[in-house]
């Protein structure tokens, strides 16, 4: 019976999301919206591994970039977008799986995890950057180094290479994918697998003492996050029509982390809010030259870490709850407590 109100919330949420999808293009240009949605999916992927698995990955951009590059490379070689699109999810997920296995089976934690993911991102960034010379070909696709890969087949209706999905259609496709991703994760974190993962994020040793193979769970969760970031990457590639090594940069990783912090990783909606708000902010900042972007984002990051470590989502959602006058359920409480809070030891509210 507790689940009932949850389903009610969910259905209302999805309904509102669809309303947003139809209404928003009247206020903001849809190409900007598409990008915000892509960023939201990327943020969601980090929100999953960080907020629920307790794995702070400094290299989420690596999977994003890998997804975008896989898409571009396979799209050039294959010419039809369906298979490249799937591969763009599979390749980063596999990569994340292998990387995760190395890290988690090696029992690396916190800082070292951060360092490894950071280093791997740097290696990829360096590597892709140094592929300008013509011998770096994958099939007929030239990796292009610093200049990236332009001119590949963008998203098309499956099976019809000439029916491009772009402009407004592309925006709708992205939005639907976002809703589906959100729902997928919503059910994932409520499944047995998800709950165990949350438990592991909360207290790894306890989970182990109970008899869960922590390494396996973390690795799989990490791979799911990687795949989702790859999906965002594929959409990005299709949106931008070019992929460049900048996708792998630390700056990109930093942005994802800032979105998550601002939105809050204690619930799935947090990273989405964060990505949308900051994405818009960045876009509007681009239309002025007085204040440097780095400064603005740096200040935001520091302020949130110091004063609002839970991010905006809890605040937004309490307003949301009041609007719905739904009862608080245990299940919702669970989502509120994040590992980040735990590390700090502020256990009592």
């Amino acid at each position: 019976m507790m689940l009932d109100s949850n389903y009610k919330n969910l259905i209302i949420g999805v309904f509102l999301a669809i309303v947003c999808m139809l209404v928003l293009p009247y206020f903001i240009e849809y190409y900007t919206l598409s990008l915000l949605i892509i960023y939201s999916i990327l943020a969601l992927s980090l929100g999953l591994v960080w907020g629920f698995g307790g794995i702070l990955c400094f290299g989420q951009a690596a999977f994003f970039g890998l997804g975008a590059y896989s898409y571009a490379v396979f799209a050039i070689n294959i010419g039809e977008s369906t298979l490249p699109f799937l591969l763009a999810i599979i390749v980063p997920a596999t990569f994340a799986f292998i990387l995760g296995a190395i890290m988690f089976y090696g029992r690396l934690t916190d800082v070292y995890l951060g360092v490894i993911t950071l280093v791997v991102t740097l290696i990829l960034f360096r590597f892709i950057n140094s592929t300008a010379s013509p011998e770096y070909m994958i099939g007929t696709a030239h990796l292009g180094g610093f200049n990236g890969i332009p001119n590949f087949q963008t998203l098309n209706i499956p099976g019809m290479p000439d029916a491009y999905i772009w402009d407004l259609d592309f925006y709708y496709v992205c939005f639907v994918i976002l809703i589906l991703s959100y729902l997928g994760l919503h059910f994932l974190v409520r499944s047995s697998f998800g709950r165990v993962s949350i438990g592991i994020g909360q207290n790894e040793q306890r989970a182990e003492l109970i008899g869960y193979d922590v390494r396996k769970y973390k690795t799989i969760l990490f791979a799911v996050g990687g795949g989702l970031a790859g999906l965002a990457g594929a959409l990005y590639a299709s949106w931008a029509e070019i992929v460049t090594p900048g996708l792998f940069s630390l700056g990109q990783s930093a942005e994802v982390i800032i979105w998550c912090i601002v939105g809050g990783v204690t619930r799935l909606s947090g990273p989405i809010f964060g990505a949308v708000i900051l994405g818009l902010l960045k876009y509007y900042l681009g239309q002025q030259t007085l204040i440097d972007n780095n400064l603005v984002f740096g200040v935001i990051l520091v302020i949130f870490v110091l004063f609002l470590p839970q991010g905006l989502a809890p605040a937004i959602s309490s307003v949301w709850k009041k609007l719905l006058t739904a009862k608080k359920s245990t299940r919702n409480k669970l989502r509120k407590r994040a590992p980040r809070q735990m590390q700090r030891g502020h256990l009592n509210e």
Partner: protein
Amino acid sequence: MIFGMMKIINFAHGEFMMLGGYTTIVCVKAGANIYLAMLVIAPLIVGMIGLLLERLVIRHLYGRLVDTMLATWGISMILIGIVTMIFGNTTESISTPIKGWAIGDYQVNGYNFFIILVAIGLVCSGYFLLKFTRLGLIVRGAMQDPNVAASLGYNPDRIYMTTFFMGAALSGLAGGILAPLVGLVPSWGTAYIAKAFITVVVGGPAIIVGLVSSATLFGSVNQIFAFIFNPVFGEVALLLCAVILLRILPKGITNSIFKGKL
């Protein structure tokens, strides 16, 4: 240094270097003596900035490793932003004060010798300071267990401040010294920080031995590969080496090999 002692990963370290470089350049352009600028003024000013940031931000976050990482990342972005607004993104630089000379057929960059001398001096004095002076003892004590130091009547807060100041000042010094060799842009620090950061983390908690051993290892790996192939391979080899090392010795070199050393 800050990591080893205070269990803080400072992402803004590279930016402290960058600030040191800019301080040096501004001073030199204002007519100051270059050695005075990079050996005295740059560390002092950067140290003060570090101190200010420690008081304003970092001291609220001790013991929250991940949060400090994030906050210092934010600080690094702020510093880059401010410097960009003041100086712009265009490269700033000053010329090298020592001329090269010839050894046999080879031209040698005289300034490199100067850097090596300064580095040796720093490592030695750092070791001496930590190992043999009372201050060093207190600092080491405080890092091991702040409560003990506190119960002995030392204010751990002050000790943290001092250490952070010194760490920042050291980066300022490094930035100052490197300034004449490179073209300085606001994002310059980020290029170095990954390397320095990895060196320190892989080096592990024993500050000096760890630093020297991992720095030597990475430095030689980098240079050897750079010489044989090209700088990309040098860097990639360095990074791979770091990953492998962390995999084999997850606690850092010193924890696994040089146990119980400083």
